[in-house]
Structure formats: structure tokens, C-alpha cells
């Protein structure tokens, strides 16, 4: 509830949102042009460049306004709500892909093998198919493949991400105690662990493609495996970039023990990415 509307900061007109729209339009329209018409990827690249410029400009404005003390506690609450609901929307995005995975494993695979009321479908369409998981379907789309075991790299990656959750909390404690050394070291370790995670994930993908013949196009298993871990990896990368920016701002001394929403937003996002990984580890790797 509000106590001080008089102090709620209302920004001046801004051209950054429009720049963002042009950037997104070029990025996605350019990508579609590339996929559909096999056109030049330059449109897409220019779109992403404009988006990057927009983020520098827009976030730069926000940082400047925050630094000049424009935001009161009520504005801060709006930011918190915005970030929390944004993370909820991300949760629902992942839910769509987890839902696809569960549907395939619980329903689609057994049904293709003749379970439930699918006896005749099975007889006529795929009489030789025995339901199993991991599967690339009755058509063995993508050819024979090997499964990605849970207790190698993925287990190590789990440890890495969980540790990074600890280091980012340790950094937060440092910030709250006004101990900048602890803050910067904690953030540095978190970003480093994030980068290590992404690096190991890339190594795992390389292994899957070259040695296991496990590809994005390897039927249901390949589709769910790479889309889930791929989008997660993308989110780890985004989270690591956010934390890197927070690290650089910490070095510049932007944050105070009581005023550091950017840090908390990045940390929330990092924990969200962490939790998604636990779901992935259990349902994509371990119980596969």
C-alpha cells in the first residue's frame, strides 16, 4: 500500500522502448527472413545490436536515476513485483517444455506401444514398436543414439550450480554487512561457477553430438533433452551476464547495504535458474 504518492518517480518521455521495439522486430523478423527466405542474417544481427544498445541506454538511465536518489521505497516495491512476476512467467515457459516431456513419457510413448485403448493403432501403424524411454519413436528418427548418463558431468554441474547459489548468498551477506571484499569475491565466484557450468554444458553437447549420436533431431528424447537443457543454458548465460553487470557495478561501489535491488533481482533470477536445473537433473537425466 502506498504512503507517499507525492514521491513516486514518474519518468520523462523516453525513446528507449521504441528503440527496443525496432530492435526486437528486426531481430525476430530477420531471423524469420533467414529461416523462411534463406535471406541474409544481417537484419537479425543488426536487430540484436540495437537491442544491446537499448539495454545499455535504458538500464543506464535507470542506474543514473537510482544513483541520484529518485526512487523511494514504493518505486522499489514496483521493481520487486515486476521482477518476481517476470520470473513467474519464465517458470511457466519452462513448464510448457516440462509438460511436453511428461506427456511424452507418461502418455505418448505407452500409447505408441499399444497401451490404453490404442491396441489397433499399434497393430496397424507401428506393430514392432515397444514403448521405452529414452526413445526416438517408432521411426527411430535420428538413428541409434546413446543416453546421457546422470552421474557424470550432469552431477558435477548440479554441484557447481548449487555451490553458486551458496556463493551468491555469501556475497549478499557481505553486501549487507558493508563488506565489499566479500561482496566482490562472492560475486566473482558465482559468475565463474556460472561460466564453468556453461562451458561443461557445451562440452557435454559436443560429446552428445560426436560420440553418442544424440542430437536435437533425435526424436522425442533429443527434442526434449536439448530444448530443456538448451533453454536452461541460455538462462544461465543471461543470469551470469546479469551477475557480471552487478559485479562491475559493485566494483564501482554502486550498492549500499540497504539499497541494492539490482543485486537482489539478479540473485533471485540465479536461484530460479538453479531450481529449474534441479528439475532437469531429476527428470531429464536421472529418471530417464
Amino acid at each position, binding site marked *: 500500500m502506498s504512503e507517499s504518492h507525492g514521491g513516486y518517480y*514518474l*519518468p520523462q518521455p523516453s525513446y528507449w522502448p521504441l528503440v527496443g521495439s525496432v530492435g526486437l522486430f528486426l531481430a525476430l523478423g530477420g*531471423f524469420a527472413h533467414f529461416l523462411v527466405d534463406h535471406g541474409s542474417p544481417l537484419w537479425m544481427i543488426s536487430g540484436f545490436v540495437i537491442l544491446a544498445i537499448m539495454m545499455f541506454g535504458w538500464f543506464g538511465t535507470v542506474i543514473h536515476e537510482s544513483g541520484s536518489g529518485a526512487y523511494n521505497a514504493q518505486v522499489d516495491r514496483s521493481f520487486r513485483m515486476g521482477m518476481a512476476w517476470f520470473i513467474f512467467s519464465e517458470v511457466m515457459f519452462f513448464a510448457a*517444455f516440462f509438460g511436453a516431456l511428461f*506427456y511424452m513419457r507418461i502418455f505418448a510413448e505407452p500409447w505408441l506401444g499399444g497401451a490404453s485403448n490404442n491396441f489397433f493403432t499399434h497393430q496397424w501403424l507401428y506393430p514392432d514398436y515397444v514403448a521405452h524411454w529414452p526413445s526416438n519413436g517408432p521411426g527411430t528418427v535420428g538413428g541409434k543414439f546413446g543416453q546421457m548418463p546422470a552421474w557424470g558431468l550432469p552431477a558435477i554441474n548440479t554441484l557447481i550450480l548449487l555451490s553458486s547459489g551458496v556463493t551468491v548468498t555469501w556475497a549478499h551477506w557481505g553486501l549487507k554487512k558493508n563488506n565489499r571484499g566479500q561482496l566482490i569475491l562472492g560475486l566473482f565466484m558465482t559468475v565463474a561457477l556460472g561460466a564453468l557450468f556453461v562451458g561443461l554444458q557445451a562440452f557435454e553437447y559436443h560429446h552428445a553430438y560426436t560420440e553418442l549420436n544424440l542430437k536435437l533431431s533425435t526424436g522425442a528424447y533429443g527434442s526434449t533433452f536439448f530444448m530443456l537443457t538448451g533453454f536452461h543454458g541460455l538462462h544461465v548465460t543471461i543470469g551470469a551476464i546479469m551477475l557480471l553487470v552487478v559485479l562491475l557495478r559493485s566494483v564501482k561501489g554502486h550498492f549500499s547495504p540497504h539499497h541494492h535491488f539490482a543485486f537482489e533481482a539478479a540473485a533471485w533470477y540465479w536461484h530460479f535458474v538453479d531450481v529449474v536445473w534441479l528439475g532437469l537433473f531429476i527428470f531429464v537425466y536421472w529418471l530417464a
Partner: protein
Amino acid sequence: MSTTMTHDAGHHEEHPTGIKRWLFTTNHKDIGTLYLWFSFTMFLIGGTFALVIRAELFEPGLQIVNPQFFNMMTTMHGLVMIFGAIMPGFVGLANWQIPLMVGAPDMALPRMNNWSFWLLPFAATMLVAPMFMGAHFMDGNGPWFGWTFYAPLSLQYNHLAYFVFAIHLLGISSIMGAINIIATILNMRAPGMTLMKMPLFVWTWLITAFLLIAVMPVLAGCVTMLLTDKYFGTSFFNAAGGGDPVLFQHVFWFFGHPEVYIMILPAFGIVSQIIPTFARKKLFGYSSMVYATASIAFLSFIVWAHHMFTVGMPVAGELFFMYATVLIAVPTGVKVFNWVATMWRGSMTFEPPMLWAISFVFLFTIGGLSGIMLAVVPADVQYQDTYFVVAHFHYVLVTGALFGIIGAVYYWLPKWTGNMYSDKLAKWHFWLSLVSVNLTFFPMHFTGLAGMPRRYADYPLEFTRFNQWSSVGAFIFGFSQLLLLILVIKCIRGGQKATSEVWEGAEGLEWTVPSPAPYHTFAIAPEVK
């Protein structure tokens, strides 16, 4: 809290002029206006597509367009109306009204508010552009697979990536808009306005915004799976690879069913504002209205597969989704009962907003009842994919959602422009619309029950008479909407000056500010007792 600096406090009515005002604005009223004009433009475009459909269906046989083009019209009509007209229309109303109704100086995140709007014209361009990508004008490269874009049919569409990314842009816009609305409602209310004192339009939008944030990302996931199935070799919807085309329908309708409530809950809120004003009574059963809205929102997540009764689900699934769907009639019935009870023994007058609200209660209920018929599995086996379904969802979306938006425009237009509109023109608009909308959609119940399937450019001879009524009605309805355009333009340009209160029985914070509402309102929060 500290009263540091409010940038605009010093120079109240100042803002950039000309095109820059609209491109760069962070003002909720400007952005609301942009949303509403965008919505109306898309409404006319989508309406034109509908008239192409009705012109072709005036007679059996193929007269005007080829079947491919006809498919494109049905698809684009649905997409443009849902994502271009109805949803942005409600967001425009939210932008204008929610800060005024909760006593906030603006939306919580004004710059992001601008971005939510300014993504829309780009998204609409990307959606429509493929229609013009061909050797000839309107060659028919636009989407042609129905607005539900079922796989594997949509996977055969050669411009699919443009469609997918247009949906992504629309989704990003909706999510940001919804986040803004939630933050505004939860964080910006005037002191004393507890949650259970909020106007119902605000309540219904709070719940709608939650639905948007919950399901727009699922739609994004759905189109992303289509994109990778089409261009990157995944097998989500390919049974040979272990996927399932039915999976598409589950993911799509997990979004799609809450989506239809996204398009009706704010209209419930609007009607709950209008009826008490013109019945000069407090809304009957305020708290039950809030709980009913929340119940409908909850149920919307567990009924999606009633859109898929004939796809070959296990019987247990059919039963679950049938019973869950029929349950929705309970909270919806509570709402209709409360609206009628509010009018009961009220001092009713029939100004234009009230006419739209009352016709909403009647006609939306018809759509709701045909919905219960469709929810019953054995009956649905007969009705599915016929014009009965078309009649059902046009009763809830045209005489429901759209009538709600138009009623809201008539209700709040004097507050926006500072002028009263022409009552005579408004009544012409209402009565022409009311008669023609029923002439258009009521016969579709009969053509549907008689077995005429949806989405065909041609039909057997015996359906001719009913189709001709529908077509005549559609053209009258379509051209009647131009009266609204004329009325709004005239109202902006002048007319009898509106008072602050505008309507005799109106209650709420928005009626305490002058008409037209100043560029900045509630810089100091009002006190709500």
C-alpha cells in the same frame, strides 16, 4: 517516505507535442489512448476479413475468393480480433482507468508501459506481412490454418517463422502489460483502498493479469516447439519420432482456455461498474463477485481439454474435463444472478452504457448456456466443429467481450474527452448493433445443429437461407460500427461539457477528477474512507 523528486510535478500539463508525444510517452492516459485506437483499427481490419467470409458464404458455391484465400480470412479474422482488437482494447481501458480508479499518479512502471504498447504495431505488421509476400497483391501467403494453428497442419505453412515470432512479440507485450497492471494494483492504491474496496473492474483485471502471466509463456513455448519442429528437426508433434500431434492441442489449449477468460473477465468488471451506476444501487454481492471471478480463473486451468473431446482421449479424461467445465456454470451463474439482483428494484435509466451492459447480461448468458451444451461430451461429438461452436464463441466474444469494451467506451468517454456524446447517434449504434449481431449469429446455432461444418468456403444448398441471414446481419453490424467511429470523433471535437461526475449515480475515484481528466492526476494520493 522521503518526498524527493517528482519529475513532472513542477510542470504539470507539459509534454512533447506532435508525433514525439505518442512515440515516447510514459503517460498512462496517452498509452491508453494509443491502445484503444490500435484496437479499433485492428477491429476494422479483422471485421473486413469477416465480411469477406460472409460475402463468400452468402451463396453456396465459390463466388468471390478461392478456398485458400477463404482459409486465410478465417485464420486472420480470428488472430486479428483476439490479439489485435479484444486484448489490446481491454489493456487500453486498464491503462486509462486503473490508475484513475485506484488513485495512483500513473502506472507503476511507465516506461515499460510504453514498450508494451509499441511492440504491438510491430507484432501486427509481422503477423499480417506474409499476406503480401507473393507474386501478386494478397497472394494468400498469410496463415491459413485456423487461429488455433494445429500441428501438423500448420507445419506445412511455408512462412511459419513469421507467424511464430509475431506470437512471441504479442506475448512479450501482453506479459509486460500484465506485470505493470499487477504492480499498479498491488502497489499504487490510494491509502484506505483495501483490496476488498477496489472497484470490480480493478479486481477482474488483477485476476486477468495473473492469467496472462501464467499462460502467455505457455503459448510462447507452444509456438517455439512448432518452430523447432519445422526448422530444426525436433519431434514434439511427430509420432514417428515419439512425439504426438495431440500434444500440440494440449499445450495450445492450456493457454487457450485461460485465454478466453482473459477476454471476458475484464468485461465482467466493466458490467459490474456500469449496472450499479444506472440502477443507482450498490452492486449486489460484491464479495461473491470477487470470489466468483477468482473461481472462474482457477477453473480455467483445469478444463482445457474440453476443446479436444473428439481427439481420442481416454474416457477418464473426457469425464474429468466435462465435469470440471460444467462446474464453471456455478461462479458464472453467481455473477449473472448478482447483476440481475443489482437491477432489481433499482431506479434504472437507460443511457447508452446501460443498454450495452444489459444486452451483455442477456446475450453473454446465451453464449454461456450454449457453452454448457458443448461441455457435455456425448452432445459435443455432434456439435464439434460446426457452426454451433461458431455461434457459441461469437456470443461470448462479440456480445460478451466486445459489447463490454463498447459499453466501457460509452461509460468513460466523457471522462476522457470532457464532452458528452450524441445520445441519438449512440442509440442508433446500439440498436443497429443489437439487432444485426443477433441476425448474424443466432441462425448459426441452427446451421450448426443441422450439421454445417466450420471453416469451409462452400456449403450444401439447404443451408442457404440461414447463411444469407447471417451475411446480411454481418454487413449491417460491420457498417454500424462506423457510427461509433463518427460518434467518438465528434465527441473529441466538441459537445456539451461533461461534469466531473458525468453520470448521476456514478461512484468511484475516477469521477472525482475533472472531465477531461488532466494529463496528470492524483499526484497527491486521495484518501479513501
